[in-house]
C-alpha cells in the first residue's frame, strides 16, 4: 500500500537500512533518565504516559480491591464509613481522569498518530511533553489530597456537598483534575492540528485508519467538553476558598447548575473513553480477519455522529433531579439516537468477520471480547435512557454495572488488545502468545463474574456508594468479589509476561502480524524520526486479502 511494502522482503531491507541510517528511538538519544524526562519524541512521551497511567491504574485498582473486600459482608466492618467513601472517590478519580481518559490517546495515540499519518512527530512536540507534566502534576495533587486524608465527594463532586459540607481535601483534588484536564486539551489540540496539517502525501481523509478517526473525534470532545468541567471545578474551589455563592442554595445559588456543567463534560467524556477503544478494535479485527473493514465510510460517520450527538444527551444523568419532564423527553430521545451509530459499529465489526480468514491471537481475543461487552453495556444504556426504568435504577448498581461494561469491559479490553497488538512495534519484542491468550480469556470471564451480578443488584434496589447494605444482597456481592479476584489476577498477568518479554522476548520483525498501515512499514521499534523517507500512500486502508496473501501488496 505504500512505497515501503509490507512483505518479508521489505522487512529485511528496513532492518538493514535501520543499521545504516540510525538506531531505534529507544537507543538513539541515549538511555539516561534526563533523555527520557526531557524528550520531545512522541514515541518516548507515549512510554512516559504508559508508565504513569499504569501506576494510576494500579492505585485505582487497589482501591477497587478494598471496596470489593468491604462489600463481602453486609455490615460495614472492614473499613470505616468515611474510609469507604474516600476509597470509592479515589477509585473513581484515578480511574477516570488518570487512567481511562488519557490512556489510549496518550499512550497508543501518542505513539501511533504520527506513525499512521506518515509524519515525523506531532505538530507541537514540546506541548506534548508539557501535557505529560501537567498530567503528572495533576496526578500528584490528587495523590497529595489522598495522602493528606482523602476526598469523600465521589468523582462527581456534587455541590453543595463538595463546596460546603465535605471536610475533606476537595480543593486539592479538584485542582488536580483541573490540571489533568489541561493535559487532555493539549493532547487533543496536538492530534487535531497534526491530523489536519501533517498527513503524508496521498493520505486523504478517507484513507485514514479508523484509529486516527477515533482519536480525531476524541480530541474534538476533549477540546470542547473539558473546558466546561474546568470552569465547574474552578468554581467549586472558589466557593470553598473565597465563599462564592454560585452553587450555594442557602444564598440563592443552584446546585443543579453544577450538575449541568459537570455532565456536559462527563457524558461526552464517556466517548473520550470509548471512541479510542473503538479505533483500536477496528484495527485489530481487520488484521486478524484479514478483511477490509465492513462499511468504512459508515464507520467514519458513526464515529463523528457519536462525538456530535454525545454533546446533547447529558440530561439523562438528571432524570430524577427534578428536571422538567419535557427536558427528560428530549434527552431520552437523543440518548436513544446516540446509540444508533454505536449499534452500526457493532454490526460492522461483526460483518467484517464474514468471509474473513480468522486467527485468534491475543489482540483478537480482546477485540472480540470488546464487541460482546460493549454490546451489553450499550444495550443497558438504553434501559437508563428510558425514563421510567431510570427512575428505578438510577444511582443503583445497575448503573455501576452499565458503565463498567462500557469503560472496563469495553475500553480496558480495547486498551489491552491494542497494547498487545502494537507491543512488537513499540518494544521490538514479541510477547508469549499463550500467556496473553490466557490472560485475555481470564479477563473476560472475571469481568462478567464481577459485573453481571451488579445488574441484578441494581434492579433489586441496591443503591451505589453504600458502605453497608441489607443482608439480602450479600450473595450477589460475594459473586462479584470472587469475579474481582479473577479479574485482578488477569490484570496483573500482563505486567509479568510483558515485562518478561522486554528482556527475553524474541525480536519482532517490522510487521509480525502482516498488517496494513504505515506504522508497520517502518522498523520495530521505529527509528527516531519514524521513517527513513516520507511514505506515500496509494491505496485505501485495510487492504487485506482473505483469499490468500498476495505477494505484491
Amino acid at each position, binding site marked *: 500500500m505504500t512505497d515501503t511494502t509490507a512483505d518479508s522482503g521489505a522487512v529485511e531491507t528496513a532492518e538493514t537500512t535501520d543499521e545504516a541510517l540510525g538506531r531505534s528511538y529507544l537507543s538513539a538519544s541515549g538511555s539516561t533518565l534526563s533523555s527520557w524526562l526531557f524528550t520531545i519524541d512522541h514515541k518516548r512521551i507515549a512510554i512516559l504516559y504508559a508508565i504513569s497511567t499504569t501506576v494510576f491504574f494500579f492505585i485505582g485498582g487497589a482501591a477497587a480491591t478494598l471496596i470489593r473486600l468491604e462489600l463481602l459482608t453486609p455490615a460495614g466492618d472492614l473499613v470505616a464509613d468515611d474510609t469507604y467513601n474516600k476509597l470509592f472517590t479515589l477509585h473513581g478519580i484515578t480511574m477516570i481522569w488518570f487512567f481511562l481518559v488519557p490512556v489510549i490517546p496518550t499512550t497508543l495515540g501518542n505513539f501511533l498518530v504520527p506513525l499512521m499519518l506518515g509524519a515525523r512527530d506531532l505538530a507541537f512536540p514540546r506541548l506534548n511533553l508539557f501535557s505529560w507534566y501537567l498530567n503528572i502534576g495533576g496526578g500528584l495533587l490528587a495523590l497529595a489530597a489522598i495522602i493528606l486524608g482523602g476526598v469523600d465527594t465521589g468523582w462527581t463532586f456534587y455541590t453543595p456537598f463538595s463546596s460546603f459540607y465535605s471536610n475533606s481535601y476537595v480543593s486539592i483534588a479538584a485542582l488536580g483534575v483541573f490540571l489533568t484536564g489541561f493535559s487532555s486539551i493539549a493532547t487533543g489540540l496536538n492530534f487535531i492540528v497534526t491530523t489536519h496539517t501533517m498527513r503524508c502525501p496521498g493520505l486523504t481523509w478517507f484513507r485514514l485508519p479508523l484509529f486516527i478517526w477515533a482519536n480525531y473525534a476524541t480530541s474534538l470532545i476533549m477540546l470542547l467538553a473539558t473546558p466546561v468541567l474546568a470552569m465547574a471545578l474552578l468554581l467549586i474551589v472558589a466557593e470553598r476558598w473565597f465563599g462564592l455563592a454560585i452553587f450555594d*442554595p442557602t444564598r440563592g445559588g443552584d446546585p443543579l447548575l453544577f450538575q449541568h456543567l459537570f455532565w456536559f463534560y462527563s457524558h461526552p467524556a464517556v466517548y473520550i473513553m470509548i471512541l479510542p477503544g473503538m479505533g483500536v478494535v477496528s484495527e485489530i479485527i481487520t488484521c486478524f480477519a484479514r478483511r477490509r473493514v465492513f*462499511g468504512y465510510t459508515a464507520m467514519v460517520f458513526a464515529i463523528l455522529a457519536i462525538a456530535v450527538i454525545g454533546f446533547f444527551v447529558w440530561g439523562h444523568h438528571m432524570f430524577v433531579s*427534578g428536571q422538567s419532564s419535557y427536558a427528560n*423527553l428530549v434527552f431520552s430521545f437523543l440518548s436513544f439516537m446516540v446509540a444508533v451509530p454505536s449499534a452500526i459499529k457493532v*454490526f460492522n465489526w461483526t460483518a467484517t468477520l464474514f468471509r474473513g480468514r*480468522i486467527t485468534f491471537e491475543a489482540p483478537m481475543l480482546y477485540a472480540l471480547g470488546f464487541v460482546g461487552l460493549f454490546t451489553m453495556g450499550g444495550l443497558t444504556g438504553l*434501559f437508563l435512557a428510558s425514563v421510567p426504568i431510570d*427512575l428505578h435504577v438510577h444511582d443503583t448498581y445497575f448503573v455501576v454495572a452499565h458503565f463498567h461494561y462500557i469503560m472496563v469491559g469495553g475500553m480496558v479490553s480495547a486498551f489491552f488488545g491494542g497494547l498487545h497488538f502494537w507491543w512488537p512495534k513499540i518494544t521490538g519484542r514479541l510477547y508469549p502468545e499463550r500467556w496473553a491468550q490466557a490472560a485475555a480469556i481470564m479477563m473476560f470471564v472475571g469481568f462478567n463474574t464481577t459485573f453481571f451480578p451488579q445488574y441484578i443488584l441494581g434492579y*433489586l434496589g441496591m443503591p451505589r456508594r453504600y458502605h453497608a447494605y441489607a443482608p439480602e444482597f450479600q450473595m450477589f456481592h460475594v459473586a462479584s468479589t470472587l469475579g474481582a479476584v479473577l479479574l485482578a489476577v488477569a490484570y496483573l498477568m500482563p505486567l509479568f509476561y510483558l515485562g518478561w518479554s522486554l528482556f527475553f522476548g524474541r525480536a519482532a520483525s517490522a510487521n509480525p502480524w502482516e498488517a496494513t498501515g504505515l506504522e508497520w512499514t517502518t522498523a520495530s521499534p521505529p527509528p527516531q524520526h519514524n521513517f527513513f523517507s516520507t511514505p506515500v500512500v496509494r491505496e485505501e486502508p485495510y487492504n487485506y486479502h482473505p483469499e490468500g496473501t498476495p505477494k505484491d501488496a
Partner: protein
Amino acid sequence: MSGLSSFISAASERARQTDLLFFSATALSGFIVLLVAGLIIGFSIRYRKNSNASRAELPPPLLREFETGWTLATVLLFVTIFGWASAQGFGAMTPAGEPLQINVVAKQWMWKSEHPGGEREINELHVPADRAILLSMNSQDVIHSFFVPALRIKQDVVPGHTEALSFIADKPGTYALLCAEYCGTQHSKMTGKVIVMEEEDYADWLSHQEADNSLAAQGERLFTTLGCSGCHGHSANVRAPPLENVYGSPVALADGRIVEADDAYLRDSILQPKRDVVAGFKPIMPSFAGRVSEANLLALLAYLKKKPQQEARDD
C-alpha cells in the same frame, strides 16, 4: 422488613408497568446479545484460518442493502422502545384524585416526614393504600434522593428546591426506603421504611400519633428554614458554636468575659451576633434583626431550651 420482598415486590401499578417495560427490554437485549454473540462465534468457526469456506467478495450493492437494513431496523427498534417508555413516563405523571400531601425533610442522615395533621415521623413513612400521595420534599443540607424500590420511584431532594413526588401504593406492606444520592459519611445509613396500610389502619395509626405543634417544634422548623442549622447543625461545614445544652450554661466570650446563656443572651446573639462572640469562633454570623418576628424568636428560644433531648433522638 422481611427479605428481598421489601425491596422488589411491586407495590404499585406503576411499579408493575416499569417491570413489564424492564423485562421486555431485557428479553429484547438478550436476543440482540445472543444474535451478535452467535454471529461472532459462527463466523469465527466457519471462517477460521484453515476452513475452506468461500472468501469471495459479495457484490457491493448487496452490502449496501445490508447496511441500510440494519441501520433502519436499529432506528425503528430504538424509537419503538423510546415511544413505549415515554408514553409510560407521561402517563404516570398525573395521579387521579385529590392527593394526600405529606411533607418530607431530608437531612444528613435521616428522613423526617410530617402528615397534614402535624403528625411527625423519622425514617418511617406511613401511607394509606390506594390513595394518591404527594410528597413535598426539601433538604436541609446536601442533595439526597428519596428511593423506594418497591414503588420503582426515586426523586432527588435538592436543597433550595421543593421537589414533588407522587405515587399510589396498592399493596399494604413494609417496604425499604433508601437515600440514593450520595450525601456524606453515613449515606448508607440513611434508610427507613415506607409502611403502606389499608385506609382504616392508616386512620387508626394517625389517631395514635400526637401532632407536635408545641412552640419548641415550631422553633425547630424555624431553626432549619432560617438556615441556623446550616452552621449550628452538628454536621455543618461552617464552624459555629454547637447549641446542645447551651441554655443556662456559662459561655466564654472572645473578649474574655463569661456570661450565662439566658433568654436575653440568646436573643441578643440572634439579633446582634457581633456583640458577644463566643471564644474561638469567627464573627461570621449575620444579624437576624428584622428577619425574624417576635413570635418566631420565642419559638426559637423554646426550641433551644429543649435542644438536648431533640438531638439525642436524632442520633
